């Protein structure tokens, strides 16, 4: 089965099945949702096996006419970059369902609705990475806000509705700027050989550098809000700390990747010249994000907010890798997107279990968990180590590639960014020490350790983190050709490595 459209249809069918389950049988709707996501994950892995690694063209291409009046097609296809991200999304989905088995119970609406929203979101997550028609991409980009909005506002905790609104308004604002750019592209394509939204055709458009700069900004701001890049990040900590752990995993792990994915797929491809013009500025913003996110993470007292700020730092690394314009940087950034998905998932999922057991998300309320709940504590420890990019775990490879790729062209940026790694050690080790080690805080003695379901849910995440730490080539073989292709298209060649003996 090599059809992306069918893959997108599967979760929709699952959501209809969930909708058909009776409201009283909550377990049944969970089981249907889990079965659907597992099937989708297996189907995606099967497709990935059929992917031709060395072919830089789009694969699994499908195209159907949608709104011919405007030249809009429902066209999908993947390259190495999109494939990796779709793979990440569909593997994360069943993990989210299984790990958050009970998290829909505190919501405003039924458990059933929660899983319908998750499954609809999964369809859109596949679609947003697979779309090769800019209009289709935009439609999914905006439409996927709605299920997330209801997931945060309906099932979150604390100031959930305010956080949901902040998230939605930020994203809508960015999306509308992108819409203005898309309209301009569409009109220009009409003047240069017929209205179209085909990504390939649009990248051939001729436009003045001023136009290109403005249109680039329209896209880039939308993606920088999504990603999120300093100073457009303020919605993220609120959203992440209010959402359920599962929703946070999808939000930070998958949705935010649409931002960095969009920078490569749309900003660089459509506006190569403008990308070069803005690179110095973006590199500075990326470095600020790395350091700023890390410093703020150190100061957080709330576990979920801490994880959110670490992500801002990580997205700084990804953005830096993208705009370093070297093939190592690009490969590193793509691999980073994948790895960040799993290490953040691990942090949020295990952190979520800790919070649910303790009934508080304040780090100071934990303490000595190592003694009471060893499996949970070790899981959190491993997730933290992955987040700080310990060698031997997956994030190390990608962070290293990004820094190496950046250093050859922007040594100063790379050096400052390296401090981010030092800070990362602080922001992870401090909560690890406070929460896991030391004497057991009174009130925590009775906490229960992970049960079988939770172990099954977290095991694949840990397996991937470790496996990719030792053997990243399995993914890099898919990513490298795509990265090299993008860099070559931009007209860059990798600079010769600086020789230390010089």
């Amino acid at each position, binding site marked *: 089965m090599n059809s992306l459209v069918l893959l997108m249809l599967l979760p929709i069918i699952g959501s209809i099945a969930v909708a058909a389950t009776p409201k009283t049988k909550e377990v049944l709707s969970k089981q249907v949702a889990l079965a659907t996501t597992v099937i989708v994950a297996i189907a995606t892995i099967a497709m990935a096996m059929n992917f031709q690694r060395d072919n830089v063209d789009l694969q699994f291409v499908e195209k159907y*006419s*949608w*709104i*011919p*009046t*405007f030249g809009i097609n429902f066209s999908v296809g993947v390259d190495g970059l999109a494939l990796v991200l779709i793979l990440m999304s569909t593997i994360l989905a069943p993990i989210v369902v299984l790990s958050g088995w009970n998290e829909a119970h505190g919501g*405003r*609406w039924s458990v059933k609705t929660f899983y319908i929203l998750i499954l609809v979101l999964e369809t859109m997550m596949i679609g947003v990475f697979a779309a090769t028609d800019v209009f289709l991409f*935009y*439609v*999914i980009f*905006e*439409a996927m*806000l*709605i299920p997330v909005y*209801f997931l945060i*506002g*309906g099932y979150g905790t604390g100031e*959930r*509705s305010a956080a*949901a*609104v902040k998230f*939605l*308004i930020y994203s*809508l*604002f960015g999306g*509308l*700027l992108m*819409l*203005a750019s898309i*309209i*301009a592209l*569409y*009109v220009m394509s*009409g003047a240069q050989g017929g209205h179209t939204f085909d990504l390939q055709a649009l990248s051939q458009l001729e436009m003045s550098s001023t136009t290109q700069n403005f249109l680039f900004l329209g896209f880039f701001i939308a993606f920088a809000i999504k990603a999120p890049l300093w100073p457009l990040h303020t919605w993220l900590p609120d959203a992440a700390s209010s959402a359920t752990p599962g929703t946070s995993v999808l939000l930070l792990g998958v949705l935010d990747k649409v931002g960095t994915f969009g920078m490569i797929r749309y900003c660089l491809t459509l506006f190569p010249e403008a990308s070069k013009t803005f690179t110095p500025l973006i590199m500075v913003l990326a470095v600020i994000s790395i350091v700023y996110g890390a410093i703020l993470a150190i100061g957080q007292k709330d576990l979920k907010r801490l994880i959110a700020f670490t992500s801002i730092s990580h997205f700084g690394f990804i953005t830096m890798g993208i705009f370093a314009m070297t093939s190592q940087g690009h490969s590193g950034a793509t691999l980073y997107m994948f790895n960040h998905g799993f290490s953040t998932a691990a942090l949020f999922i295990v952190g979520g279990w800790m919070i649910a057991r303790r009934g508080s998300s304040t780090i100071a309320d934990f303490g000595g968990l190592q003694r009471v709940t060893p499996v949970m504590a070790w899981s959190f420890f491993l997730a933290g180590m992955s987040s700080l990019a310990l060698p031997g775990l997956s994030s190390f490879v990608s962070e290293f590639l990004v820094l190496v790729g950046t250093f050859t062209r922007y040594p100063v940026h790379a050096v400052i960014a390296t401090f981010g790694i030092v800070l990362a050690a602080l922001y992870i080790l401090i909560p690890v020490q406070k929460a896991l080690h030391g004497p057991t805080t009174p009130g925590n003695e009775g906490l229960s350790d992970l049960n079988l379901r939770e172990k099954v849910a977290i095991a694949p995440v840990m397996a991937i983190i470790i496996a990719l730490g030792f053997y990243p080539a399995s993914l890099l073989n898919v990513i490298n050709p795509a990265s090299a292709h993008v860099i070559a298209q931009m007209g860059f060649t990798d600079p010769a490595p600086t020789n230390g003996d010089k």
Partner: protein
Amino acid sequence: MEFSSPVLNYTLLSPMLILLGGAIIGVLVEAFMSKALRPITQLSVTLGSLVLALVQVWRIRNEKSLSAAMGSVVIDGPAVLMQASILIISLISVLLIADAQQFTALAAALPGSEEERHALQSGNQVTEVYPLTLFAVAGMMLFPVSSDLITLFVALEVLSLPLYLMAGLSRRRRLASQEAALKYFLLGAFSSAFFLFGAAFLYGYSSSITFTGIRNAVVGGGGNDVFLLIGIAFLSVGLLFKVGAVPFHAWSPDVYQGAPTPVTAFMAAATKVAAFGAMLRIYYTVFANAQWSWSPMLTIIAIITMVFGSLVAIAQRDVKRMLAYSSIAHAGFLLTGVIALNKAGLEASLFYLFAYGITTVGAFAIVTLVRDSAGEVTDLNRWKGLGKRSPWVAIAFATFLLSFAGIPLTSGFIGKFSIFSAAYESGATSVVIAGVLSSAIAAFFYVRVIVLMFFTDPIEDGTSVEIPSSLTSIAVIFSMIVTIALGVFPAPILDFISNLATFIR
């Protein structure tokens, strides 16, 4: 002097004639029918005339004629599309008007008088709203197909006068309703005067009252340009008043709020189609060659209108007033279609008008359902937790709001996309940027209502959701289907519009 008898093409005029005939039958029914049978008869006559007229419009869809009525009426593709939109919107609005609870039993009685109470108690409900609706619809149908200034003015009055009356028919809050009617009437009269003044100047400029004559004068040049400019300016004031553009918008929040909600729905949706229809025809055909005389002015008005409407809507605490300001903002978006002055702009405007009209009726239909013992509850604070109490009603309203906000997969998005891309194509970049930014502002207050409905807990104050009558349900379900269908599969409608949307001159 020799008189020639007028030549009328009855086939082309038949949709309007059917409606006027239906309206007259309605008046007779009102006068002679027993009161038990009156409501159902009136409803059947009204719906019947609208359906017949729609069938007739469909049959003449490929006709093109400048001389349907001695050069006073023009029938072409856009005319057919506008008339069909008006009829469809009116049909679903009438389904709401059929709710007698909304209307005063005896409009002629003083508010709070013994007479009024008596009429209410005896169940002696008058049903004059039906023929009034039909008269208004007939006027709206004529407005965008008029091709001389006199017919245009007559159509304007035919559509306006019944609306002034209908605005005052509310059963609850009679005084507010009458105030709305009076305000609407007075300001409407002012704008009519401006309109006539402009028409007089255009006649002075071109010594013709027909669109063709004025157009030829504009193309030929040589007339007194001051007369032309004054003419365009004053005529525009009259038209901008009807569409509710800033600074001629002051009436609309009060009237929207005071009028019975079904009338507000009808007025907000159908009047916009008619008024923008006429505007499009006039600017695209008559004044097209004087583009530089009006385009900068309309650009500024469009920008002010959308920004003002979106900003002020944020501060509203009443759902009807909020929808009124939202409709002002949408008038601004629609003006970008007029400014575009190209075929894409015309097609986009026609699509937008239809999509927006249907969504508007749907949204007001929901407003009629949320009530307490004293009638409709329009205070937004009391809509809290609606999603908990009546999820389907809240979901429907959220869908309409998302469409207003222009979220993809709703008709509002396709409308916004097409109208902005047409404006951009014509070089009106500033309007597009203002439009995009005010869409972002507007999204804020639409979202706020969704938050109120879904993310806050209900307060127990007797607010409840009426179980919708079957007619109201049909209106809501139809609007919802259209709103989503036009967002997901707009291609057939867009093609249909594209084939027809060419003005003949």
